[in-house]
């Protein structure tokens, strides 16, 4: 039920925003008294956008940071150079060399190329700012250490340094912002994110070059060439050079993730199409065909909207096992279809009932059968409503974990979905924020594409039925 409620809430919120914008457009030209209302609408829209964007940007920034960075500072600090207290180890005693009777360990505390500047440093956790850069400290186990502002250090001792670990140095340093693609390597496989970015940039450049070449050509084919060319180049680069250059230790491989991706598509696409087809027929019947008990049927469909799907998990799985479907794609398609149908029928029926009666009656007078009316008139006119429900159903099946776990993923481990693959990456005790943030942006990619490709229908479809 939570899912249906969420979908409903989202639909209402989106509708309100949309109506707000429409309102501002029509009212802007009206009397000056309404200007304040317009501003209020603008401000609340801006506020809603900000409320949504703020955590999203935070997740996005976090997806480029390491676990330790996330644990130590907030993401808003990641964008600027920051003064940090760091604990860094000097090189291990085994790297010491003998110079003029002294044992010496030399090196730089910071990794190659890091431009950090040390303000104070220390060698005890009790006094982390005891020394200025350039000063020399006496080590507790004998010898001295000198640290410079750029991180260069030199340890000297008359006797050999002992132990297996290097000396701890506590530094207070200003370090530049640091970002990594490492999280994406863990989620997608080594170098996949980097390669995808390179290929996408190349494809984009190719796209603009083609558009420049064909800018004067007005034939319809010329309009398609730049987009198709860019896409072809992208696919060709990925095929020729490959996506991944290996596996990251402790993570799934690119093959695993790709397998989960196609498995998710296998679940999602039929689970979107089947309920739409069934619901469109049902909605037409409930909207335009007269038969006894029609009102009761509509009431029953509305009532089904509030039944939590969790209630049906065990009985439905028992049924699937009993009739021999078992756990598999067919089962998960049927489950998604069943859970999606009440909302689909309700939404489509409300849209269809608002179509002009004249057209349908004219068709009937001309001798059209119900099937012909449905296929020739209702379906084309209902396209916005169909598309908007398709987006809902697609997003919800794409993000689903519960239904997949119950009806698809069995103990043989041969089937999985992306959400499940991500959960596995999160580890036995969870809490890997960097993986969670990265996985969120990986799994959001396809729904975003679908949403932007079909959003104009979403808006029209949502308005459908609300204004007559």
């Amino acid at each position, binding site marked *: 039920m939570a899912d249906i409620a969420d979908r409903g809430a989202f639909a209402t919120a989106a509708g309100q925003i949309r109506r707000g914008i429409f309102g501002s457009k029509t009212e802007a030209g009206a009397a000056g008294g309404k200007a304040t209302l317009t501003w209020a609408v603008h401000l609340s829209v801006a506020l809603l956008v900000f409320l949504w964007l703020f955590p999203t940007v935070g997740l996005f920034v976090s997806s480029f940071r390491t676990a*330790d960075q996330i644990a130590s500072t907030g993401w808003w600090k990641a964008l600027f150079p920051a003064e940090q207290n760091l604990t860094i180890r000097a090189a291990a005693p085994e790297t010491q060399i003998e110079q003029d009777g002294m044992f010496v360990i030399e090196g730089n505390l910071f990794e190659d190329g890091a431009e950090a500047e040390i303000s104070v440093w220390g060698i005890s*956790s009790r006094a982390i700012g005891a020394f200025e850069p350039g000063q020399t400290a006496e080590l507790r186990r004998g010898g001295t250490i000198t640290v410079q502002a750029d991180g260069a250090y030199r340890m000297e001792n008359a006797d050999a340094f002992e132990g297996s670990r290097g000396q701890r140095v506590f530094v207070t340093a200003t370090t530049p912002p640091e970002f990594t693609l490492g999280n994406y390597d863990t989620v997608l496989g080594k170098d996949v994110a980097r390669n995808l970015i390179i290929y996408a940039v190349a494809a984009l450049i190719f796209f603009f070059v083609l558009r420049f070449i064909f800018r004067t050509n007005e034939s319809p084919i010329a309009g398609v060439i730049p987009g198709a060319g860019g896409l072809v180049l992208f696919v060709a680069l990925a095929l020729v050079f490959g996506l991944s250059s290996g596996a990251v230790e402790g993570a799934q491989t690119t093959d695993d993730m790709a397998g989960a991706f196609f498995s998710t598509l296998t679940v999602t696409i039929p689970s979107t199409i089947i309920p739409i087809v069934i619901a469109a027929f049902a909605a037409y019947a409930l909207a335009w065909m007269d038969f006894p008990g029609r009102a009761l049927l509509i009431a029953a469909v509305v009532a089904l909207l509030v039944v939590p799907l969790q209630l049906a998990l065990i009985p439905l*799985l028992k049924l699937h096992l009993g009739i021999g479907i078992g756990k598999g794609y067919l089962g998960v398609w049927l489950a998604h279809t069943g859970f999606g149908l009440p909302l689909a029928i309700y939404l489509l029926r409300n849209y269809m009932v608002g179509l002009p009666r004249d057209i349908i009656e004219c068709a009937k007078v001309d001798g059209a059968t119900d099937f012909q009316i449905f296929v020739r008139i209702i379906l084309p006119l209902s396209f916005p409503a169909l598309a908007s429900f398709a987006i809902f159903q697609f997003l919800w099946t794409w993000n689903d974990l519960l239904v997949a776990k119950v009806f698809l993923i069995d103990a043989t481990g041969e089937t999985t979905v992306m959400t499940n693959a991500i959960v596995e990456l*999160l580890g036995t005790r969870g809490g890997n924020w960097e993986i969670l943030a990265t996985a969120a942006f990986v799994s959001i990619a396809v729904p975003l594409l679908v949403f932007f490709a079909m959003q104009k229908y979403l808006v029209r479809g949502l308005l459908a039925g609300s204004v007559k």
Partner: protein
Amino acid sequence: MTTRFLASAAALALTAGMAAAGSHIEFKFPVGEGPFNWDSYNDWAASAPDLSGQSVTISGPWLQPEDDYFRDVLDYFMAATNAEVTYVGSDSFEQNIVVDAEAGSAPNIAVFPQPGLAADMAGRGLLNPLPASMGDWVAENYGAGESWVDLGTYPDENGADQLYGFFYNVNVKSLVWYNPENFEDAGYDIPTSMEELRELTEAIVAEGETPWCIGLGSGAATGWPATDWVEDIMLRTQPPDVYDGWTTNEVAFNDPRVIAAIEEFGWFARDDAKVAGGAGTVAATDFRDSPKGLFSSPPQCYMHRQASFVPAFFPDDVEFGLDADFFYFPAYASKDLGSPVLGGGTLMAITDPSDATSALMEFFQLPVAHEIMMAQTGFLTPHKGANPEAYLNDTLRKQGEILVNATTFRFDGSDLMPGGVGAGSFWTGMVDFTGGKDAAAVADEIQASWDALK
């Protein structure tokens, strides 16, 4: 029809692929090398039944990276018997297994993270008892063996006690983690008694530093780390039979002895000076973030009481065993209660019996099945036959010794209590307590919730 055709084609392809792979399994540790008991494995493998074509499915709570370690163990069984064994992990295992068992699509073996749910499912007739010989074997070969048998024995649907659970992967909870170099910098010594631990806590406060990092946050399970504290203190202030009575409610939750233990936890956790961030942040700090304070600069705290799994949450550059170490959460020198150890563990139970499943359970009795895990991750075992040399590092070996040599071993009490208490009111009650509520009032509420369940 097409779907079925495609499905069978896919299944055929998969079987073909696996048959090809099955003939040359790559072992994580080659047979005959390393500190493993290969002889017993080879003996068993020589007489193992040929189970080609049979498959065993296992579900459990282990995910990355433990799941791959466990699959490495299963390789040895597959090589010996030609059976196909698959393990699938789930983060919501407790819910999935109930749905699957009720509907009839349960795996062959389920790995339960704690005994409460297993006992519940045994009572509903969803588990199959283990052979009696298994119980004798555990009693003989596990450290404190009888207590492991008792923990795996539950009443079946007719109320008769049967052995259902076989413990595999155990953790020790009575550990205090610290940073040895920070102790050295500050000149602190490892406390060997509870009195010394209290003195050290006060000494650190007197120096203006913060002794403890305590975090209870864990999403929906917020509060559980505090239940471990209270259980550990119960074992150190009261004899074991009082502890046992407490977990079954023969000793009421609002008994003065229990309230005293809760208040003693409050001595550590409810004092702003003793806890990093102040007492108000204890409930809000995530248990996964809390240990990081040991390694920050300057250190936020000097000690952290947590189970043996916690090194997974140390910062990346901390080398386990060198930069971080632990000491036993000590007992009172003034009370003659021995050295009690609190622990937890996962147990295996058969949810769908078959010949191959029985053979696999037999395989898990071999030392090798434990040693392969010990050599890869923070896996502890009470199996006396397993070679301690196989442990990944000295720190784990020390923990393993604590486990095998325990004079009193007691299982995590909150896991033994009914779910509504041990995974409900006890958790929330501890959050209320750290938030400033009176210990007696909290104990009364928890007892009331227990009464309501009866």
